[in-house]
C-alpha cells in the first residue's frame, strides 16, 4: 500500500488552522469563538501526529495525547466561564461585555 505523503497532512492542518482563525475573528458569539480555538488546537495536533509517523519512538503522538487532555481542560473551564458570564451579562455576544454598568 502506498503511504500518504506527509505534505497532505500538513495542508489539511494549515486549512484547519486558517478556518479556526477566521472563525475566531469573525464570529461574535463566544461559543463560536471557542469552537474556532478548538479547531486551531486540533490542527496543531494533526501536525504532531503526522510528524510522529516517521519516528519509531512515537514522541509526537504521546505529546498529542497530552495536548488532547489539556484541550479538554481548557474547554471545560471556558464553558464554565461562559455560563458565569451569561449570568452576569444576560448574553454571550462578545461586544456586550463591558464593566461599565
Amino acid at each position, binding site marked *: 500500500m502506498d*503511504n*500518504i*505523503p*506527509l*505534505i497532505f*497532512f*500538513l*495542508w*489539511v492542518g*494549515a486549512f*484547519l*488552522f*486558517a*478556518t479556526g*482563525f*477566521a*472563525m475566531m*475573528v*469573525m*464570529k*461574535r*458569539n463566544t*461559543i*463560536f469563538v*471557542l*469552537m474556532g480555538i*478548538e*479547531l486551531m488546537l*486540533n490542527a496543531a495536533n*494533526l501536525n504532531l*501526529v503526522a510528524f*510522529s*509517523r*516517521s519516528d*519509531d519512538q*512515537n514522541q509526537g*503522538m*504521546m505529546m*498529542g*495525547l497530552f495536548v*488532547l*487532555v*489539556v*484541550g*479538554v*481542560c481548557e*474547554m*471545560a*473551564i471556558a*464553558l*464554565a*466561564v*461562559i*455560563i*458565569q458570564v*451569561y*449570568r452576569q451579562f444576560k*448574553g*454571550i*455576544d462578545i461586544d456586550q461585555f463591558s464593566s461599565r454598568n
Partner: protein
Amino acid sequence: MLVTRNLLHAALAMFLCMLGLAGLYVLAYADVMAVSHLLIYVGGVLILILFGIMMTQTPVKEGESVNHLWAEQSGRFWPLSMGLSIFMGLFWVLGHGNWSNEIAQTDSKIVQTGVAFLTEYSFPFELTGVFLLIALVGATFIAKNHG
C-alpha cells in the same frame, strides 16, 4: 462551521470535522490517538458544547418568532481574507519543505503507548491526572451560582 450562523449547525459540523480528523489519525498510523480523539471530542467536548449552547439561550417570549440560535457575526471581509492569507502562506511555506516520507512503524501502537505511559512518561501521566482533577473541580466551582 465557518459559513453557518446557526449554533447547532456549527456543532453538527464540528462533529463531522472530528470524525474526519479521527480518520486522518488512522491514516497516519496513530490508532491510539484516533480512538482517544473520538472518545474525548465526539463523546465529551461536543456534549459540553451542546450543554453550553442550551444553557446560554435567552428564552423565547410569547408570540415572538425569533431564532436565538442565530448568532451575530462581524464583517466577513477581513476575517476571511486573513484566514485565506494564512492558508496561502502556510501552503507556500510547506510546499518548499523537503519532508521525509518514510514510515517507522505501520502496525498498531497500543502496546508501545501503554508501556511508554507507565515507564518513560509516568510523571507527565500522573501530572495530567492531577491537572485534569484540578481543572474539573475548578470548572464546577466557577460554574456554581455564587448568589
